[in-house]
């Protein structure tokens, strides 16, 4: 039985560096998945270098095994072996932020009472040392009866020590099955803390000290007025960057795709295969691939903000305001993640303990402009909004994009507010937000995260979008136009027929049938609307060329109405699927889909009519 897989689990308070440690230990070979039915992101990966096969699992951060919000319950249930489809861990790797030992030790004592083999990791040991915190690890290990290792998130020597500790544990531990049960809570919190204080007095010298720059930064960032100004500036910078900084790289990708099309095209004889490869495959995938730089920039901002410790401050600042519409500071992070993609955003609503608030956050998350909408926005804005500098600082296109983001946010606030009026204010699980120490984002961890996101996008280009490009090219090519055709060939194709079929529905919005065709595959992925438009307008040569042909065939009010449609419409099957899974309710999913489509329709109608009057 010595070859059976040994399961290790990383457990600890939120934000103590578990995931960074996980990346180091597994070489970032993480499989990212979700807990079935509970959907907190689950990471697991192989733990190399032990005498037997082993797997490491990264559990969601938790303060307690007894009092738990839903995401904390995941950690408890996995540890106890109550989670279906999850093997109970054989060894717990408890992680403590060494600058915050007291809080961490309380959880460690709870875990220790379970009787599983454990290792204690004092992470962020360098930060602790620079604050004059001196931990006698050998004594602590003796008192706790478990090995204690100091690590510095990525520095190799600490991780090496940890690996040594894990190796020696792996040699002695037997895999066992069956559930554990949580012992009755027999000891008052006061007496646990008394034990911890005694332990700390013996093992740790910790001067009362936080770095002054941290406090100064907090005074600034959490200032009621300055803090909000800083937050607004960060968000504006983020959106300007997405638009402006990405441009040169995007031009480069476009040129490259065009060149590739030419090279491959030259190799193929003229005919159906040539058209398929050049116009269908290369142009279709190229037109979506070009948005990779924007997506990378957006995620770079989100990951850096997440890692720096800034986000909880923003949640703190906005809490009162968000409560005004029935949400809380806790909803801020899921909603912010939804700017990248509503799917992880909705998944991260697990950390919202109040079920009603969680539902409202899920319902409004897709109103946050996700990165898949960027290609569509970028295309339409590029074609219809003049490239001009206003107020000497901002470019008008970036500003328009900013307005689209604001429209989504304002609508979300309105929707949340209306729901609250209907349902009344329930009592809520406490906010009790930990405001972690600021730190420089860990470069390795940051790059791993960025790579993961880029990879998710690229694999979509390679799978869903590739398949859709093929289907679309087929729909747009067959049946062929008759010999004596007078109209563009696509009007005779299946795509043309389909677009014309649904077009009457969109007539009041001013959408022509080309625009309607683009909406159909965009249900699988919004960004495909761009490649569809490229196909139906038979344009090759990149976004600029497509933009100029759109500028000739759409009026400005209709283009704006199209943007408004994309602000609201739940044009994304994966989002609908994740709502279904998260709410576990068909009714909620139908309401979700229905209300967003209705909103999209009304908004597009209003925008078209009003802008026709004003412009």
């Amino acid at each position, binding site marked *: 039985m010595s070859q059976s897989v040994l399961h290790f689990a990383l457990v600890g308070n939120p934000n103590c560096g578990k995931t960074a440690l996980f990346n180091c230990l597994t070489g970032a070979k993480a499989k990212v998945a979700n807990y079935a039915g509970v959907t907190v992101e689950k990471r697991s990966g192989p733990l190399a270098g032990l005498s037997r096969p082993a797997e490491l699992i990264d559990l969601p951060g938790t*303060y307690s095994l007894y*009092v738990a919000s839903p995401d904390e319950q995941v950690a408890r249930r996995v540890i106890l072996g109550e989670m279906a489809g999850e093997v109970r861990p054989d060894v717990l790797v408890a992680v403590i932020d060494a600058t915050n030992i007291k809080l961490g030790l*309380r959880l460690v004592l709870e875990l220790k009472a379970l009787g599983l083999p454990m290792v204690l990791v004092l992470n962020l040991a360098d930060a602790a040392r620079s604050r004059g915190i001196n931990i006698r690890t050998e004594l602590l290990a003796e008192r706790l009866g478990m090995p204690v290792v100091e690590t510095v998130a990525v520095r190799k020597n600490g991780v090496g020590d940890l690996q040594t500790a894990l190796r020696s544990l792996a040699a002695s531990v037997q895999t066992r099955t069956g559930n554990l049960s949580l012992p009755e809570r027999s000891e008052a*919190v006061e007496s646990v*803390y008394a034990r911890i204080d005694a332990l700390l007095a013996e093992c740790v010298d910790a001067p009362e000290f936080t770095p002054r720059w941290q406090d100064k930064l907090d005074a600034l960032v959490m200032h009621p007025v300055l803090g*909000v100004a800083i937050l607004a500036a960060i968000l504006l910078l983020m959106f300007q960057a997405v638009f402006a900084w990405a441009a040169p790289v995007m031009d480069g990708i476009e040129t490259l795709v065009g060149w590739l099309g030419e090279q491959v095209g030259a190799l193929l004889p003229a005919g159906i295969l040539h058209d398929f490869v050049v116009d269908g495959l290369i142009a279709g995938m190229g037109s979506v691939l070009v948005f990779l730089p924007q997506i990378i920039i957006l995620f770079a901002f989100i990951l850096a903000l997440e890692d720096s410790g800034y986000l909880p401050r923003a949640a703190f600042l906005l809490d009162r305001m968000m409560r005004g519409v029935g949400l809380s500071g806790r909803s801020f992070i899921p909603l912010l993640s939804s700017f990248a993609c509503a799917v992880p955003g909705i998944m991260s609503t697990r950390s919202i303990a109040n079920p009603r608030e969680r539902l409202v956050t899920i319902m409004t998350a897709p109103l946050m402009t996700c990165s898949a909408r960027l290609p569509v926005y970028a295309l339409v804005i590029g074609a219809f909004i003049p490239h001009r500098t206003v107020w000497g600082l901002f470019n008008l296109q970036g500003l328009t994009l900013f307005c689209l983001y604001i429209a989504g946010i304002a609508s979300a606030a309105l929707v949340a507010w209306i729901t609250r009026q209907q349902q009344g204010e329930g*009592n809520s*699980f406490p906010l*009790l937000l*930990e405001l972690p120490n600021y730190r420089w984002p860990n470069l390795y961890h940051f790059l791993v995260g960025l790579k993961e996101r880029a990879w998710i996008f690229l694999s979509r280009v390679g799978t869903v979008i590739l398949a859709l490009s093929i289907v679309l090219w087929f729909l747009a090519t067959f049946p062929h136009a008759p010999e004596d055709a007078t109209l563009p060939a696509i009007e005779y194709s299946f795509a043309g027929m389909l677009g014309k079929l649904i077009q009457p529905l969109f007539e009041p919005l001013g959408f022509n049938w080309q625009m309607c065709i683009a909406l159909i595959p965009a249900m699988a992925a919004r960004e495909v609307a761009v490649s569809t438009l490229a196909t139906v307008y038979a344009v090759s040569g990149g976004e600029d060329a497509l933009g100029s042909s759109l500028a000739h065939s759409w009026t400005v009010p209709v283009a704006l109405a199209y943007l408004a449609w994309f602000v609201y419409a739940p044009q994304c099957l994966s989002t609908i699927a994740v709502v279904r899974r998260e709410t576990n309710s068909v009714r909620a999913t139908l309401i979700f889909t229905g209300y967003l489509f209705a909103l999209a329709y009304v908004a597009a109608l209003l925008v078209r009519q009003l802008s026709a009057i004003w412009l």
Partner: protein
Amino acid sequence: MPSAHTPLHQLPKGAKATIVDIVSHAVFGDMDEQVTLRLKELGFLPGAMLQVIGFGLFGSDPVAVRINGTKFGLRRAEAEKVLATIHPM
């Protein structure tokens, strides 16, 4: 004037105080005991020292405090559960 037992949110910014008691609060209903426990688990125990470091956008809600070297944000309702005596500045 802050009396000897002042709820957390009524303390001025920058004030240092010692927690005297964690009291029950009708707002939390059946959850009140859970909320008290969570507060205690995070270190909000009678005798613990804390410092008020800031307030949210509007008024004294939420309030940020430092306790045992960790900073937490608490809403008005949670803050009302925590009674403290202020240290002379």
